[in-house]
């Protein structure tokens, strides 16, 4: 694992959270994750785009082509109802796991 890669297995959850606020296109998501994590996590397209395709197959996001801010055509992704549910499930699991790890590390 590289220095700036996301914690293994959490990429989908992060994407879901990012999309929970508003629909975005691919690069926008990568930028947002980098910004909000204050540079700790950098997602490269090699992981992001396949993850998005997987989630689309699983029905958690859906996509449509729109014009972006600089008047170009871009593929925008947005959450579906199933995606929202997945987000709440996964964040609950993550919180539980993180708390457990913290307890162990402080013991």
């Amino acid at each position, binding site marked *: 694992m590289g220095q700036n890669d996301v914690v293994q297995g959490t990429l989908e959850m992060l994407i879901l959270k990012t999309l929970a606020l508003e629909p975005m296109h691919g690069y926008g998501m990568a930028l947002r994750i980098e910004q909000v994590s204050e540079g700790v996590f950098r997602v490269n397209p090699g992981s992001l785009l396949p993850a998005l395709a997987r989630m689309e*197959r699983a029905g958690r996001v859906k996509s449509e082509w729109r014009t972006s801010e600089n008047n170009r055509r*871009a593929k925008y992704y947005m959450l579906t109802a199933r995606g929202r549910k997945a987000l709440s499930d996964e964040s609950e699991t993550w919180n539980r796991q993180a708390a457990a790890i913290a307890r162990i590390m402080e013991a």
Partner: protein
Amino acid sequence: MRFFKNLARGARGLFRKESVEREMDEELREFLDASVADKLNRGMLPEQAIRAARAEMGSGNALKHRIRSTGWESSLEILLQDLRHSLRGLLRTPGFTFVAVLSLALGIGANTAIFTLIRQVMLHNLPVRDPQQLVTFGTSEGDGILGGIDLGMFDQFTYDFAHQLESQPGPFSGVAYYSSFPPKVSVRNGGAEAAVQVSASLVSGNYFSVLGAAPFFGRAIFPSDADAPNRSAVVVISHHYWQQILSADPAIVGKTISVNSTPFTVVGVMPEAFHGFKQELEPPDLWVPITMVEQIMLQPNMLTPRSFYFLHMFARRSTQSTLSADQAWLDRQIHDYVRAGEGATIAAARLQEIDRLTVRLIPGSHGVSFMRTQYGMSLKILMAVVAIVLLIACSNLANFLLARGVSRQREIATRLALGSTRSRIVRQSLIESLILSMAGGAFGLAIAFAATRALIVFVAEGATYTALDPLPDTAVLLFTIGVSLLAGLLFGLAPALHAARSSAGPVLSANTRTVSSGGGSRSRLAPKALVVAQIMLSLLLLVGAGLFLRTLRNLQGQDYGFERSRLLIAGFDARLAGYKPEQVPELNRRLVDRLSTLPGVRAAALSSTPPISMGSWRSSISIPGYTPQPKEDMGSPINRVSGQYFEATGIPLVAGRAIAPSDQAGTMKVAVINETMVRRFFPNGGAVGRSVKINIDAVAGPWQIVGVARDTKSGDPREKAQRMIYLPLSQIVGKNGEGIGDSFAYSIALRTSGEPAATIQDLRTAIASVDPNLPLLQVRTIQEHLETFMSHEALISRLTVIFALLALLLACIGLYGVMSFNVARRSNEIGIRIALGATGGGVRWMVLRESILLLVAGLLLGLPISLGAANMVRSQLYELSPFDPAILLTSGAVIAAVSLFAAWLPARRASAVDPMIALRCE
């Protein structure tokens, strides 16, 4: 909903590749542009920005590939790719592929055909209710009308006994009976239509209810139909008859058909699967109440108490009673019946004898089948033969796949090194094996259809309609396909798994000039073992084929006791044309006169039974001056023959004279007996001139013996000759010379001067000219006639020979394949040897030596197995020891010759290896 969305998306990915591709390109481009723009924003220089953005993205193609593989359609595409690749690979070696598929197909097809037949002949359950409750009284194998026997002998019973048990079945829930053979009757449907001859079965009133067989439509026969003789002329017809002859007339119930010129009303039609309780080769088409026996068999008084034993019986057991209790009850009924018929005083010895009478109750859920007993052993042998062929075929397939596995080791190692997953490699081998198995299975199915049909035609001996279904048995087909699939998977998978497990390094870097480059001698053990096994099995089959062939030859060549060429035998039945006994002597005379004048006929004769037959007309005899031993069988088959019989059949006389045309109704009653009779009753000679009393109704004896004829064989060619008395047909008449029931003749014998087949048409015309209504039932040359008795010998031996040769061919190809593959793999090693000075002959010998070792191992191991198997089929052989050395030696020699030939070609190729070429290519 998601499922369908996914499906749609995947389908789009499959069929609209370009638009999906374009979308992905666009998305990537957009990403890249956005990334560059963002970096420019942060203050990077344009080239830096572009480079950085590109570096982040990595290879566009790899990314697109990763994106694509998230969907199911990419797996499908990969599968299709593998499929195409495997197919191409298989087609590149067409010879091997063809042989592997063909051997599998033949194994599967032949196996299915044999098993289908066996299942139907041996294992088919009756299409009736709860067949496991049914029991037969005895084996019910005999057929015919017997008189003067004890009740239950040959499992035949009289009408009064059967009827008594029908009304009072004791511990059984029902007792029913039927005629022990289906007589042929003449049926006419409408006024003008021609008559057809079909088989009819006479049954008790409760036959269908005891069986639990429901009609297809209409009704079955009820007990009320069989309450009085000659009443209730009703008939139930078979599905086959209804479809073929009556064209599936839906309103057939209530219509009338004419059976032997008596009108019968059709009351019902049976379902297609129902063929009666006893499975005959030609199943009955009509079921008629027993009380109509006189119209069907054209013989009066069949129902008279204690006269004619012609019925088989069966019963449905009730759950309350045990088998031993049922058996005891039946035996008691038999004893009571026989005792009641003996009169007031019975000798103590006779009482004991009566008490010993028993008829065994046998489970009848499969019905009774003549075919089962006659063909049972033969079919089992064939089963074994075909299973062996299947084994050999699977070995070929296995060898082929193993060889492929080894030759692809480098390919696999290379692919592994280039990043392929192990699962993909294994999957591809799997697909290859499956393709082979499927192809073999598909062809095998086609062969199964054809082979089943052919086999049935053979077994049915030319009967036009049998109850056997030519549709291959699905269970067996699935089983054999499963076996071949298993073989394919096992032998295709094993090397692939092995290769995929090992790391690429050692294989790739192995110095290909060493012996181990070919995979090492260990990897060659499996193919060698398989070849040895194939040779063993081939030896077994060849020995078997040799034994059966010789048996057949022995049977065919044996002396039957009469002239065996240029003899035409035909069957006919004047009763079917409505002849009354009074008209018969005149008819017989006219027939003999007319037939004797046929061109190309040297002698013509009529007889009651043909020279060789299964059935016979028996009567008891007594010889003045000879006191029979107690319980001695004083019966003898009797053949009623016309004047020229001995000339026509060529049966020589060893003493006295033959029956001549001059022996007529008014002259002295004469008889000719055969050698077996003489040996038994006149051991000191002097038979000619003695007289004998024969127990025939309406014809008083005594008969004077005027000649002794040579023995002839009866139905079973393996049996010793039976007794025979020949009586002049024209002397079997009533007191005033009028015809009686026994005056009928049923067989015509013609001795021809040329080929008998040429006279057949003349025979038909001649018969028609005497009476156009007289049906000829069968016309055969004596050769054909004899062959029907040896049909199962011919069946086994011919089929075994075919399969043995097939197995040998397959084994030979297997050996050739293994040897040539070995040579190919060792070509580097051989190149070095030649370069170092080995001669061509030396190299040849080196390869041949390997083959010879395999051959010898196979023969040595196969010898005890072959001897053991030969011993098991000893009962099928005739005048032949199972350990016949000539056959063993010949089989071994044939295999050796074939194997050496198969090994010679690769050996020659080995010696022709050019070391420059061999060492050059890596």
